């Protein structure tokens, strides 16, 4: 097991490369999820907003 972790003495390089990669993937997934949920929350807030629903349509302006 310790031989596997040491990777012939270069374990620090190999494992940090894999670690950085895993972190980038996890952060991307987390970030997309958070953004989607905050966008839905904002949409819900603006759906309840009278000013938005009474915004005139193009035809009314013309």
């Amino acid at each position, binding site marked *: 097991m310790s031989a*596997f972790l040491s990777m012939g003495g270069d374990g620090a390089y190999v494992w940090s490369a894999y670690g950085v990669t895993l972190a980038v993937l996890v952060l991307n997934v987390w970030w997309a999820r958070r953004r989607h949920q905050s966008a839905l929350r904002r949409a*819900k807030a603006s759906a309840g907003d009278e000013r938005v629903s009474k915004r005139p349509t193009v035809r009314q302006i013309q």
Partner: protein
Amino acid sequence: MRLPRWFHVLGSPPFVYGLAGKVAPWLGVVTCVLLAVGGYWGLVVAPPDRVQGEVYRVLFIHPQIAYVSVMAYVVMAVAAGIGYVWRIKLAHAVAATAAPIGASFTACALATGSLWGRPTWGTFWQWTDPRIMSETLLLFLFLGYLALRAAFEDRDKADRVSAILAVVGVVDVPIIHYSVIWWNSLHQGPSIMKLDKPSIAPEMLTPFLIMVVAFTTCFFWLLLNGLRGEIVERERDTRWIRQLVEGLRG
């Protein structure tokens, strides 16, 4: 120019929002399984390299991430170009979603390359290396695209101006690919993507290719996930989004 019907269907935000929601979880499962299998195969099963010993195992992530970073740029540039020419907002949404993912993959390719370079070339970084520099330029293209978008209050204007940068930046893609052939580089030449037979042992080639597929599906998984948020944000005041959020709890 007349466009086929599927082109219009794929330009419909509610349709794509729903489709992405159905496809993304499957891509997520496939990605996780392939990453686990490829990671185990690459780190445990594959034999040590005759020249590099164990440190060569970065081979199972670094080239794949670098390739996905370039693919992300091409996806971004093509989507931005389509959005610019045919004025399809959804295409701009795809481009805007691909940019941060691509930037993170590019940074990751540079980081894993550095961590591989130190024990094998004796240095983390080389300012004159064409491969490192063209990949660094890719990072700045992504960051420039994002900064340019952020500079505009008006989203339509941000879409159109940033699309021009995205399309012009495509010149960096062939430069990245051929940089190790055209100039002297510390970086090794291509060993898989060439006309000749791949110069890699079969027991290393299998996990290598599994990881190529894994990172590719990973990119599209992240893209579809991000696209859903981007669509909701852009379509906030439309009727279908209002109906969508009214059906949600909370």
